[in-house]
């Protein structure tokens, strides 16, 4: 037994060596591509500073092309290394070799990972002299201030970031390879697994923001959440993978790898050549892709908004249903590898999908949880932040304070905010109802050239007023996620006085806090170029 255990490792090395030996030219091609888009174009650049900028941007994760190449390399090696699972002959010989499945998986996984990351290690070495050279010879380069150890640390972090992207992407691609039985399916499912969560999230946000009043449409917060969903996206959005993010992604990758290993150990090799190697995977993939297809059809052809009127909903549901049917048929044909898919089993699968699809549409297009009307009780709110992304919101003394946030923590102030929140819900609903009525009226006009001009003008005015400004509420409550809402509001609405009347607003924006009384010589109130009030603080200590 001892001899078996001790001999297992060198034999695993045999597989690793063999894979490296077989596939190193592909890794070299990836290195050449990376070299070409970084060092080579940096060398070709006539301006040394610009050339160094390319390298500097690269090692600071500022170039979109790098994560794209990273993902492509991970997919390529997952497909090459685990390709033996998709051919009956190769699968048979490989599994007849004196290895346990765990050893086979480990050896192949490690070799694929080494091959995926090797081009990046080589590139790091290639960029190293260029970095130092540029640092030494270009007096204008801002990297000149960096010490060699700082350059090395930056390069190291770049390598680590890409290593984590590779690990996560490669793990997902390997997982895809194990649940699929053909190369084509491997590539398709690997792409789906890597993109599904961000894509689905984006889709959900589009649906929810279209159908739920108050759903945050703040692009930056959506992008922030989106960026967490894949290390490649994180790198693209944040240009830097922090320690916590690195640990989380390594942990997630470890879970994916473990799950892939478990599945590999129970994998039925006789299913090599089938679209999927697990029946449950076939079902799940069918549901996911059909769902995406249905949503994509809905988005592509017609997606009603609160302003499009009630008449837009039936066509939307019909197009979504058609999209679901078309996607389902195509997916089933691919899965079953035959156009003859119309049987009882397929109908049953579609029946289950119909439930999933209806649930999706109900959850995203109907406010079944009362989301739109929910206003937190002031007693349950620890703090609330209000801001406006698009226009400066009530910044009376400084036009430069774009995107200023107002934070409220006092109970009375929070109560004012929730009252404003409640008012905005009512105001938005009324406005939407008016818009829908207007839209429905327009739809009933037979002659498009006979639209009553006054009606359009009124509606456009109303619309412009509504969309002129947006107000975001960020409640901090007992829940770890808090509560966020976003509403359109009229900047001239007197209800906004509720905010101006709060202690915390006054404290933050009173004149004394902004400029200081000692610097004020006089205060003059103007209206229509007419001075109607003027006072000197030295004369009147009660100016405040």
């Amino acid at each position: 037994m001892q001899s078996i255990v001790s001999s297992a490792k060198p034999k695993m090395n045999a597989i690793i060596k063999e894979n490296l030996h077989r596939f190193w030219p592909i890794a070299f091609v990836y290195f050449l591509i990376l070299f070409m888009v970084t060092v080579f174009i940096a060398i070709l650049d006539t301006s040394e500073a610009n050339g160094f900028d390319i390298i500097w941007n690269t090692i600071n994760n500022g170039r979109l092309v790098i994560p794209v190449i990273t993902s492509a390399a991970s997919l390529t090696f997952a497909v090459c290394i685990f390709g033996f699972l998709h051919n009956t002959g190769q699968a048979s010989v490989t599994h007849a070799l004196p290895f346990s499945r765990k050893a086979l998986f480990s050896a192949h996984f490690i070799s694929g990972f080494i091959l995926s990351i090797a081009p990046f290690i080589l590139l790091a070495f290639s960029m190293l002299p260029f970095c130092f050279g540029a640092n030494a010879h270009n007096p204008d380069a801002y990297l000149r201030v960096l010490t060699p150890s700082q350059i090395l640390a930056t390069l190291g972090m770049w390598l680590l970031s890409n290593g984590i992207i590779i690990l996560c992407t490669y793990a997902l691609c390997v997982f895809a390879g194990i649940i699929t039985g053909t190369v084509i399916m491997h590539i398709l499912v690997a792409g789906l697994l890597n993109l599904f969560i961000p894509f689905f999230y984006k889709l959900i946000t589009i649906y929810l923001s279209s159908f739920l009043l108050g759903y945050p449409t703040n692009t930056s917060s959506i992008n922030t959440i989106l960026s967490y969903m894949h290390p490649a996206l994180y790198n693209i959005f944040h240009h830097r993978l922090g320690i916590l993010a690195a640990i989380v992604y390594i942990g997630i990758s470890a879970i994916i790898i473990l799950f892939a290993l478990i599945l590999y150990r129970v994998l039925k090799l006789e299913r090599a050549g089938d679209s999927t190697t697990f029946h449950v995977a076939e079902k799940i993939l069918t549901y996911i892709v059909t769902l995406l297809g249905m949503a994509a059809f809905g988005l592509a052809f017609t997606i009603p908004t609160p302003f499009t009127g009630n008449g837009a909903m039936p066509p939307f549901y019909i197009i979504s249903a058609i999209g679901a049917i078309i996607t389902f048929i195509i997916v089933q044909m691919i899965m079953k590898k035959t156009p003859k898919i119309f049987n009882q089993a397929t109908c049953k699968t579609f029946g289950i999908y119909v439930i999933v699809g209806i649930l999706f549409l109900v959850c995203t297009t109907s406010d079944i949880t009362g989301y739109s009307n929910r206003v937190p009780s002031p007693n349950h709110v620890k703090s609330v932040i209000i801001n406006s992304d698009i226009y400066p919101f009530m910044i009376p003394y400084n036009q430069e304070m774009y995107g200023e946030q107002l934070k409220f923590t006092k109970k009375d102030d929070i109560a004012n905010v929730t009252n404003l929140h409640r008012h905005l819900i009512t105001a938005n609903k009324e406005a939407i109802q008016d818009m829908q009525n207007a839209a429905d009226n327009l739809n009933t006009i037979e002659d498009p050239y006979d639209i009553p001009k006054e009606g359009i003008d009124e509606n456009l005015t109303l619309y412009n007023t509504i969309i002129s400004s947006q107000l975001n509420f960020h409640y901090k409550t007992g829940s770890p996620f808090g509560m966020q809402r976003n509403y359109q509001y009229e900047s001239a609405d007197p209800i906004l006085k509720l905010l101006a009347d709060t202690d915390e607003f006054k404290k933050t924006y009173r004149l004394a806090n902004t400029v200081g009384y000692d610097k004020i010589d006089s205060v003059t109130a103007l209206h229509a170029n007419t001075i109607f009030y003027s006072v000197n603080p030295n004369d009147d200590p009660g100016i405040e």
Partner: protein
Amino acid sequence: MIVINGLTKTFDDVIALENFNMTVKKGSIYGLIGTNGAGKTTLLKLLSGVLKADSGTIRIDDEVVYENPAIKERLSFIPDDLQFFAVYTLNEISKYFARIYDKWNDALFDEIIAEFHLDKKKKLSRFSKGMQKQAVFAVSLATSPDFLILDEPIDGLDPLVRKTVWSYIISASAERQMTTLISSHNLREMEGICDAVGIIDKGEMILEKELDELRGDIHKLQLSFEGAPATDSQLESIYRHLHVVHRDKRGAVDIFIVRNNRETLDEWKNLYHPILFDPIPLTLEEVFIYELGGTNHAINSIIS
């Protein structure tokens, strides 16, 4: 020794093997025969630890095969599909397998390759199908296996090469007590080399015997008696001592397929003194056809 007990393997709703039993003695050459789709390849893959059985046991030298690298180290499997090897040259594959198999025999490998006149620097995908089989056979034998499992190894090989392959197998069996399990449709050659055979049909072992025993147990018998033909009841009385599984008549000659050994037939002859008594052992091919073809069209080809 290979012992299989109650083995069942299903592919979704298709039963490939059901309650399958088999025993292969150490050092023997065992021929596995059956119609297409009978379950031979599935059995060989189960034996090699490639597939996992739904139920039942496969034991090689009293150890389970599946997920057992120690037993797999002593086992070599050549599948029908040689795609795995296609990307390698013989040089590459020998280096790769030498790192994996502790008992890799470089000298034997070189000897077989020389015997087959194969180019070691050429990719296997550039070889003809027959040459690929020769190459893989060389690789397989060079791992010095105690158990060699071959899925239709000689199909597509020319007679000279086939003879060489058999000679290597026989000498390894004789010298190292290598146990060989061969699936093939070439029953004439199997008959000449195998010690035992198993006939599979629809996932079940329908006949498993030592070849000598099999040959002696089933005969084609031509009989004729002197004088006027006996009545049916008289004939029934005469033939009741024979285990007749098929009967035909050509003029005055009765033709039988009987499941009796030669001693029993000789005793019967001494008892009834037919004027024509011609027992001929069935060939493996005839047994195969008889066992699997039933008594309809196939049996006619045997007795005609």
